[in-house]
């Protein structure tokens, strides 16, 4: 049976997905739901290929590493299948471990430009409607903590700040009035008023 092949290109990198449509699901002939093989070709670097069970972890490794690269001083990712370490901010070492025993791991050095090409190829695959693969949602969901903080900051500040400012300004204003208050003078005035009222009553 002839297999379908889909290629996702980005500058110096191309990702080829080979497989068959799932006819039991009434899929079109150009769909790929049963992936038998995939190949990641990087210009001037050895070919990386594997089976469906390797594709998910490798995609996840690249997504997590790209996230670490932006937020971390010394990004590093390690798993059973792939390790990614940074030499410096410009170069990264990929260590691809073979599942076969006694075979040496493949080490590939890539720069930032190739790394972004690879991530973009995986993005294209993730967004493709023709390939039935478990979509990586590492970047799609905003963490709940962030969602909460954004909304609550906006609402809480709007709700609590105006009355808080008004109470503070009232306290400040009334405390300044204390400077004008002279208790001795107040007492004398009060006595004077009292004496006047007694005199009037008589």
């Amino acid at each position: 049976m002839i297999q379908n092949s889909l290629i996702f290109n980005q500058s110096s990198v191309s990702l080829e997905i080979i497989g068959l449509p799932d006819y039991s699901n009434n899929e079109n002939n150009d769909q790929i739901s049963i992936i038998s093989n995939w190949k990641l070709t990087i210009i001037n670097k050895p070919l990386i290929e594997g089976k469906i069970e390797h594709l998910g972890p490798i995609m996840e490794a690249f997504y997590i590493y790209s996230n670490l690269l932006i937020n971390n001083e010394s990004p590093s990712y390690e798993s059973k299948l792939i390790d990614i370490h940074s030499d410096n901010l410009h170069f990264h070492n990929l260590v691809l471990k073979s599942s076969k025993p006694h075979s040496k791991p493949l080490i590939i050095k890539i720069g930032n430009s190739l790394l972004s090409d690879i991530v973009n190829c995986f993005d294209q695959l993730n967004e493709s409607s023709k390939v039935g693969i478990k979509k990586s949602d590492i970047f799609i969901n905003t963490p709940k903590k962030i969602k909460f903080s954004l909304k609550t900051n906006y609402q809480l500040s709007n709700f609590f700040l105006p009355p808080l400012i008004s109470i503070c300004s009232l306290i400040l204003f009334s405390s300044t009035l204390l400077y004008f208050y002279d208790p001795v003078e107040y007492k004398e005035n009060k006595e004077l008023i009292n004496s006047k009222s007694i005199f009037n009553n008589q």
Partner: protein
Amino acid sequence: MRKSYLNNNIKLEEFDALTKITAEMSKYLYPYIRKILQSKEDPEKNTVIWNDFKKRFKELVNERFNINSMRVKKLLNQTENDEILIRSLLTLSFCTSNKGYQKLKKFLFDF
């Protein structure tokens, strides 16, 4: 950081809109972003692109940002700003897909 006397906080809708515009622009400018990143990888071969980019970046910061602010001074600092620029370029280069704005939003929240 900008040269402005108003200190208005950005609204959530405005933040979303800006993120979408930035992601769309990075999609369009990806070949240039890639070239700039590549020129920094091998400085002996080609430093012209990186130097031109840095020069224009400085000009724009001087023109539009409040250069008395410490954060802006850090952006203009020769020794410190390379890392900030590379991280920013990488962030943009990772956000060129159709759902790039969601990625960009996440990167900005984590920053």
